[in-house]
C-alpha cells in the first residue's frame, strides 16, 4: 500500500484514506461571460495527460477531509511531494 503524506495532518497515511480529485491548478476564469466557447471548453474539459510528473488534487477524505495538491509520477505512481491547497505550484 502506498503511503501519502497529508500536509494538514503532517504524517504519512495509507492510500485507501485518500481520493484523487483530478488535475491541480486549473483556475476558473474570473469573468466567464467574456470567454469564447473554445476557451470555456478548454477550462471545463481539456486536461493534461502527461507521462511522468503530474500535478494533482487529492483529498484526505477518510481523515481530515481536506483537499491538497500533490506531484505524482504517472509512470511509477511515486508521490514526489504534497503541499497545501493555495500554495504555489512546485
Amino acid at each position, binding site marked *: 500500500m502506498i503511503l501519502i503524506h497529508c500536509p494538514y*495532518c503532517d504524517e504519512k497515511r495509507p492510500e*485507501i*484514506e485518500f481520493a484523487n480529485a483530478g488535475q491541480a491548478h486549473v483556475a476558473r476564469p474570473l469573468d466567464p461571460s467574456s470567454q469564447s466557447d473554445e476557451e470555456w471548453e478548454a477550462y471545463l474539459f481539456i486536461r493534461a495527460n502527461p507521462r511522468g510528473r503530474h500535478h494533482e488534487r487529492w483529498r484526505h477524505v*477518510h*481523515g481530515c477531509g481536506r483537499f491538497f495538491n500533490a506531484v505524482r509520477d504517472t509512470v511509477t505512481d511515486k508521490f514526489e511531494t504534497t503541499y497545501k491547497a493555495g500554495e504555489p505550484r512546485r
Partner: protein
Amino acid sequence: MSDVLIRNEPVPSTPFIAEGVTISLAAPQNRYSLRARTAQTLETLLNVKVPKKIGATEGGIACLGPDEWLLRAEVSATIPSGAGLPVAITDISDRSICLVVEGPRAAELLMTGCPLNLDNFVVGRATRTIYETVEIIIIRDDEDRFHVEVWRSFAAWLWAAFTAAASH
C-alpha cells in the same frame, strides 16, 4: 401513540466476549460537530480548552481536521448554539454509535481491517480513518481500550466484521 420512545440500536446490547477482546455498545451520548477557522473561536464560545493539533483530544473534544472538531458529552449536556459567531455547531448525536473495543487484543482486532499502525497510536489520540470500506473514528481511550465511532447504518456490518475477526 406510545409515551415512551424506545431506542432501537443496530447492534446487540450484550457485549461480545472473545479471547483477549471484548466488543460492546457504549451508552448513548451527545455528539456535536464543531466547525470554525480557529480553535480560539471555539474556546471563546465553549470556555474550555480546544486541541489545536489534528489527532489530539482534550476533555471530550477531538480535533479531526484543521477546521473540524468532534465533541462528545453526556446525554444531559447542552452547548451554546454559537449564533452570531463564525462557527457551525451541529448536533450529530444520533448519526453514529460508539463501539468499545477493549482487551489486550483490541489493537490487533482493529488492525485486521484498518490500515493504520495502531501500535504507534498513543493514548488520547483520535482520528477518522477507514475499516475495510466503512469510515470510522478511532479514539484511543486507554492502552487496551478503543472507542470506535461509526455511522448507524454501517454499525450492523461493522459489528459482524468485528465479531468475526475476534473469533479467529
